[in-house]
Every structure is written in structure tokens, then in C-alpha cells.
């Protein structure tokens, strides 16, 4: 039938047997997401349009994660607007301080997304859930408002690029290095409007957390979505987190791809994206002495338990460099608690890091670790645009938890091989 995995999910939600690339469709939604920054704009639009309907109050997720705990009066006011509205509309999945987490780590953990779903979120990294074999994509607040009211959104069916993964990742190389490598190769608009479909025998050796990280950054290549096939690991994850039945879609053998890239996972090295684009990647043979002032380990890209396990394995029994502030941010309350129980939190604190409550915080230059003029930060986040983490003349270097924690010890960007 010539459809990619993404196209099949879109067709099923548009009530069609077949869709083709570039076709414009109206599709039904399984979940609509918003955060404390984008929801106020959506609520304003919703109110302006004098709509009263909510398509399904259990299929809306509002996560207060960007500027919470409220960083200032304006943030407090706009979050309050969402709180009041969520209460009035009896939104079931409203996550506030106490049970919130960084949205794209939280939703899969809460079982709100399963394989085969169609999800839109007023946040560009909504593409993360492709790891579960779902179609998910970032939209704006007006789309979110319409989604909440009518449970529908318009889409242009994307063309696809196939990434055929094979081989095995080396020690210290993770999903973050894979996606940075790919973005470095195809550029920040290399997959513009398209879906990035990951497949091949290498997939089975990638952990779910690797897959979340890879799909999370699909948007950094301009993609509409990133997606992985559903295998045993996916099903085990979904069944452990959700009561809903996963739906498995697979690409047709004769599906059309604009390009096919073969990616040998064993050739990928620890990779760092230099300022000010995620595509500006270098491996350690090209990196000289670059001193740093801050390290952030967290975010929707790399703030999951396994990320902290890797970081703690490097920091255990060592001290971070005295000139570096190291900020560790578990992405959800559950991860936070698991870290305390397993002793990871202790390792971080004893090595001189701070461990924060879940928040997006410094990732978008919100709060909890803003950079001054000229300062440099190694972050496990996903964007290093001008001014992303503070002063327009500060610099963000994107890397894996392994590189970030090694750099924290040495006070300069350092390969985990140095450990």
C-alpha cells in the first residue's frame, strides 16, 4: 500500500484507507498537550473564539513545567490562569508542582501515550513520543485550542527519510550522540517538514531512553516527527506504564522514502554540538581546550533515570571542578524519588552538584541556572541557539550525560574516555 509508518497512523486517524505524501488531512487526536507557556495563549484563543466545548477532558494534558515553581510574578499569573481554567474545565491530566515533571518525560511515564496514538502538543519537542511508535508532533497554541475543543487537527502528510541503524553503540556512546551525529550530518533543516523513520537491526539494541532522546531531537533537524518501530521493548514499556492497548503500525515494504541513510552505530563517537546550532557538531578529535562555567544534566532530552545512572557512574567518588556549577534536574518526581532511593542523589551532592526539583528551568533560559555574558555551559538539553540559556553572548554546548559529567570534573569539555 506504499505507506510509511507515520502515514499509516495519520491515515487511520483521518478515517482513510490510504494517504499520500503532501495530502492535507483533518485527523482525530488521542491527546492534546500544553505547558505553562503555551497553554495561556491557547486559553486566550479558546476564550476569544467563544467556544465552550471540550472534546474529551481526559485527553488533554496540561503540564506546568517551564517556569514552575513560579519563577516570578508574571509567570505566577500566567500559570494561575491555566490552573483556574483546568479546574473550571475539570481537566483530568493537569500536572502542577508536586506531581508535574518535564512534559515529554512525564507523559510516557504516566502512560498517557501508547503505540499508534496521534498526539499534538503546543511544544516543539512533542515529537519525543515517536519512540513509542506513536505519531506526535509540536504545534502552536491555536492548534492546541482547536484540538482541545474539537479533538482534531490539520496535517500535511509528510514525506519521509529512512535511517537504517545497524551495529552496536560503543561504551559511553548513547542515543544523544546518535541524534547529534545525524543532525550534524543532515543539518537543522535536513528533514524539514518530513518524518524521520528509524529502523534496522540496530534498533533492538537501543534502550527506550535512547529512543526517546533520538525522537526528542527530530525537531532539531526540522522534522515533523521521528518514529521507531514497535518491538518487545516498546510493548514492555507501554504495558508497564499504561492500561491502554498499544496499536502496532508497520511501514509497507514498498513505502516511499525521499532518502535512505545507513547509520553504523559502532562508528558513532561521543559528539558535542557547538554554539549556536544543534547541527554544529564535533567529535573529540576536533575539540581543543574549552573551559566551562556550568553543566546542566536534565531536560526532556536527557533527564531520565538511565541518564543519571550514567552521570553518577562517572561522578561517583569524585569532585566536580571548583569553577563549575553543576545542576542536576531529574525530569519527573518519580525519577527524583528513584534517584534518592538508589543513592544517586547522594553521589551527585557529595561530588558537588545541586539536585533540583523537576523543571525545564535553565534549558530555555527560564530560571535555575542562567548564564552571564561570556559564560559557557555543557548541557544535556537540545538547543544551543543564541541566548538560549541566558545572556545573548553566553554559549551552550549540547552533549550526552557522559560527556557532561566528565566535563564537570575536568572543568572543560572532556570525553568520557578520560575517566
Amino acid at each position, binding site marked *: 500500500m506504499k505507506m510509511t509508518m507515520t502515514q499509516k497512523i495519520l491515515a487511520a486517524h483521518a478515517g482513510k484507507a490510504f494517504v499520500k505524501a503532501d495530502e492535507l488531512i483533518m485527523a482525530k487526536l488521542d491527546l492534546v498537550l500544553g505547558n505553562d*507557556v503555551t497553554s495561556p495563549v491557547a486559553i486566550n484563543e479558546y476564550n476569544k473564539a467563544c467556544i465552550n466545548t471540550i472534546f474529551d477532558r481526559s485527553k488533554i494534558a496540561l503540564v506546568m513545567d517551564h517556569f514552575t515553581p513560579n*519563577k516570578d510574578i508574571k509567570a505566577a499569573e500566567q500559570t494561575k490562569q491555566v490552573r483556574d481554567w483546568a479546574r473550571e474545565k475539570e481537566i483530568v491530566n493537569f500536572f502542577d508542582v508536586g506531581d508535574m515533571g518535564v512534559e515529554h518525560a512525564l507523559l510516557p511515564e504516566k502512560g498517557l501515550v501508547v503505540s499508534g496514538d496521534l498526539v499534538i502538543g503546543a511544544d516543539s519537542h512533542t515529537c519525543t513520543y515517536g519512540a513509542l511508535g506513536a505519531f506526535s508532533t509540536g504545534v502552536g497554541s491555536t492548534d492546541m485550542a482547536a484540538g482541545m475543543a474539537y479533538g482534531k487537527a490539520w496535517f500535511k502528510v509528510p514525506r519521509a527519510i529512512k535511517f537504517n541503524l545497524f551495529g552496536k553503540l560503543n561504551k559511553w556512546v548513547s542515543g544523544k550522540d546518535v541524534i547529534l551525529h545525524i543532525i550534524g550530518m543532515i543539518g*537543522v533543516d535536513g528533514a*524539514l517538514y518530513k518524518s524521520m523513520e528509524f529502523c534496522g537491526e540496530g534498533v533492538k539494541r537501543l534502550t527506550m531512553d535512547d529512543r526517546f532522546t533520538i525522537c526528542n531531537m527530530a525537531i532539531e533537524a526540522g522534522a*515533523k516527527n521521528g518514529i521507531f518501530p514497535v518491538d518487545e521493548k516498546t510493548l514492555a514499556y507501554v504495558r508497564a506504564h499504561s492500561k491502554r492497548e498499544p496499536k502496532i503500525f508497520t511501514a509497507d515494504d514498498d513505502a516511499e522514502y525521499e532518502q535512505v541513510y545507513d547509520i553504523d552505530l559502532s562508528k558513532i563517537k561521543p559528539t558535542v554540538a557547538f554554539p549556536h546550532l544543534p547541527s554544529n557538531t564535533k567529535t573529540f578529535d576536533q575539540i581543543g581546550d574549552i573551559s566551562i562555567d556550568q553543566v546542566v544534566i536534565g531536560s526532556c532530552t536527557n533527564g531520565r533515570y538511565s541518564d543519571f545512572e550514567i552521570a553518577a557512574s562517572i561522578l561517583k567518588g569524585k569532585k566536580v571542578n571548583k569553577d563549575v556549577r553543576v545542576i542536576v534536574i531529574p525530569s519527573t518526581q518519580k525519577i527524583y524519588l528513584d534517584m534518592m532511593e538508589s543513592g544517586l542523589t547522594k553521589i551527585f551532592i557529595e561530588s558537588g552538584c545541586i539536585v533540583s526539583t523537576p523543571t525545564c528551568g535553565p534549558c530555555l533560559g527560564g530560571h535555575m541556572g542562567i548564564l552571564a555574558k561570556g559564560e559557557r555551559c555543557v548541557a544535556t538539553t537540545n538547543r544551543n*541557539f543564541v541566548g538560549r540559556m541566558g545572556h545573548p553572548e553566553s554559549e551552550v554546548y549540547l552533549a550526552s550525560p557522559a560527556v557532561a559529567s566528565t566535563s564537570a570534573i575536568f572543568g572543560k569539555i572532556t570525553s568520557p574516555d578520560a575517566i
Partner: protein
Amino acid sequence: MKITGKVIKYGDNVDTDVIIPARYLNSSDPKDLANHCMEDIDKTFVSRVQKGDIMVGGKNFGCGSSREHAPIAIKASGIACVIAKSFARIFYRNAINTGLAIVEYDGDIDEGDTVEVDFTNGKIVNLIQNKTGNFPPFPAFLQNIIEKGGLLSSLKE
């Protein structure tokens, strides 16, 4: 529909973090947002932009975050239309959904040029360089959303 305006030009990959930095996202008031539009790459923008000006970008305009604050800030600053070689997809749909005119066009336009955009006929005239070019009109599906006054009103029917 036809508009004529003076060009303010930027390069490739203008991202939403520079269009409106995240530190200002604690407000959704268009006027607040417009006061800080483009400030991280162009401190002079806010003071020199005139109502009806046209913003021109290169490839992948509006990449990055999904913040609708970006097209809102540009529109509230007085910009009548954004012309770019290509747009990042979320920015593209946000612009359509919020009624900011955008055009995908690859022709020669420089800072300070005066450009006429004819939306009905998909035509651009650069009045300074005396050059003319075409751009593809929106597909009927999207034209309908724009004509109905945005996404919400089009779905309401």
C-alpha cells in the same frame, strides 16, 4: 490582496528564541512581546520597524520552539508579511493559524528594498531592484482557514 513595504532582512535559521527570547515568555500580551522582538540578534529592530514593513529571512525561518508568541510578536511589531526561502513547519502553521501573512520566495531582496507582494496572483515585485518573481499560492484547504479568519473559526462551522 496586495501590500507594499520596506524590507528588514535577516539570514538563515532565524529561530524562535531570537524572535522572542524565552525570558519574555512569562507574558502573552502581544504588546509586551513586540517590545522585545528580535532583540537578541538585532537590538535596533524594535526602534526602527515601521508599521507595514516586510521581514525577509533565509532558509528555515522560525525554527525551534513552538511558541506562538513568535508570530504574535512579529505581527504586533507592525510587520505586514514575512518572506523567507523556507519556513520551519511549526512556525508556518502558527503563522497561518494566527493570521500572519507569510510567503515562501527565493528571489533577490536586500535590506532596505521596497517590495510589493500580490497575494491574489502570487507575485512579488522588488520596486528598487526592478525584479519580479512568483510564489505558489496557498492550497485551497489552507486558503479556507485563512479566509474563515483562522483555524478556530473555520472549525467552528
